[in-house]
């Protein structure tokens, strides 16, 4: 309980520090421009180039905020490079004020873009986002069966699911073959082992753009309770073949979600694909 309180406080502190950093971007950049403007109108005996530091620091803060997000914004990440131009290019005080105001406005726009288009920070995204139904319901239904699965197998399931979603079928086939082999070596012949083998078979076929074979792997009738979609008794083999793949992938997703917490960020990124698998 105390540990969970501490973790909650840590998360709050982390969110607060991110908010301060977000605020620092316009404050530092516009602050620098304001300082340059004051030097311009008062002829204060201070080198105006000191004001450029505001934009430089704001750029580094923006780049940091872009770095800690799961989706990287290359534009925000490269702003420190552009801020270097401020130092490298000699200019007069008036041009510097105009340039700094424009640069500060650009950084602020990039910050807004970063917040709304590149989502929350990695840790916040993981905490805030929940899976939607029917995936959420399926994962809750199968969570009891995942208790015996090792975190290593859970991680493998996550990697394979992500590779498959990305269309890296060759890699998915190799990884699932290895994972199935490891489970069999450990003397386990579970529903998860069959799911790994089914994904391996499909991924290998997809990698070579081959059609459905006449004979293919399926789940055993005992696994029916753990499957997301019922495999109908229809004589149409295509339907059975593709439903078996959907079930295998969803089982890997569930195993990964329930046993490998650190991979949830990656699984969340593929949620739309997992939800799609529930469609007939």
């Amino acid at each position, binding site marked *: 309980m105390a540990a969970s309180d501490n973790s909650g406080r840590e998360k709050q502190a982390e969110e607060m520090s991110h908010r301060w950093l977000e605020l620092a971007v316009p404050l530092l950049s516009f602050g620098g421009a304001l300082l340059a403007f004051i030097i311009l109108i008062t002829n204060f005996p201070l080198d105006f180039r000191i004001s450029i530091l505001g934009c430089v620091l704001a750029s580094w803060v923006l780049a940091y905020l872009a770095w800690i997000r799961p989706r990287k914004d290359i534009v925000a990440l490269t702003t420190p490079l552009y801020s270097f131009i401020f130092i490298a290019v000699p200019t007069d005080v008036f041009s510097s004020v105009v340039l700094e105001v424009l640069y500060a406005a650009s950084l602020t726009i990039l910050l807004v873009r970063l917040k709304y288009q590149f989502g929350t920070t990695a840790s916040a995204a993981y905490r805030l986002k929940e899976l939607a139904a029917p995936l959420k319901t399926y994962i809750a239904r199968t969570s009891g069966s995942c208790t015996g699965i090792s975190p290593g197998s859970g991680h493998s399931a996550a990697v394979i699911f992500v590779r498959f979603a990305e*269309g890296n079928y060759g890699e998915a086939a190799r990884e699932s073959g290895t994972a199935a082999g490891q489970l069999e070596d450990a003397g386990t012949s579970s529903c998860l082992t069959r799911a790994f083998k089914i994904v391996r078979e499909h991924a290998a076929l*997809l990698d070579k*753009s081959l059609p459905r074979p006449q004979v293919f792997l399926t789940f055993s009738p005992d696994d029916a309770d753990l499957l997301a979609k019922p495999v109908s008794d229809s004589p149409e083999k295509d339907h059975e073949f593709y439903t078996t793949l959907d079930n295998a992938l969803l089982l890997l997703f569930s195993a990964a979600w329930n046993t490998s917490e650190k991979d949830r960020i990656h699984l969340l990124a593929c949620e739309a694909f997992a939800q799609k698998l529930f469609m007939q």
Partner: protein
Amino acid sequence: MKIGNVEVKVSIVAIAVFVIFTIFLIVASLSSPEVRSQLIWLVPALFMLLVIPTALNYMSRSQYANIAPVYEAEAKTVRIKLINESMVGKPVRIEGVVERVYYQWMNRPQYLVADRSGSISVKMFTSPDEDVKVNDIVEVYGQVIHRYMITGDPVINCVLIRKIKKS
């Protein structure tokens, strides 16, 4: 019109623009002697309205013709259901029925292609080799992209679309 091995198609929009400006030029040159004195550069400029879209169409179609074999070699055949946001940038091949055709008159056709697992938009940024119509069974080679470049649902940036006969 064929230039080399490339069949060039000028869009109806480019022709309409050319016709409208030709009418403007004729009316203006009949009513104003000043315009008539400028015809030496106005007439070539008018023809540029046809030449530039034709040249652009030739260049894009010859580029597509060059990269099509690369896609034919590298693209994986997938069901439409498997195409998702994580596959952005991947070359893919799909087979399906054309359910709708849009913007063909602009030389930027967009097709809605469906197989038994789902449907997907197929965008083409030049005119296709074949005249593809609704209900045609086609194979599509292309790259998975976002509908609006950086956001939106996954669609296929089509490099090659051709009709196939399914037994």
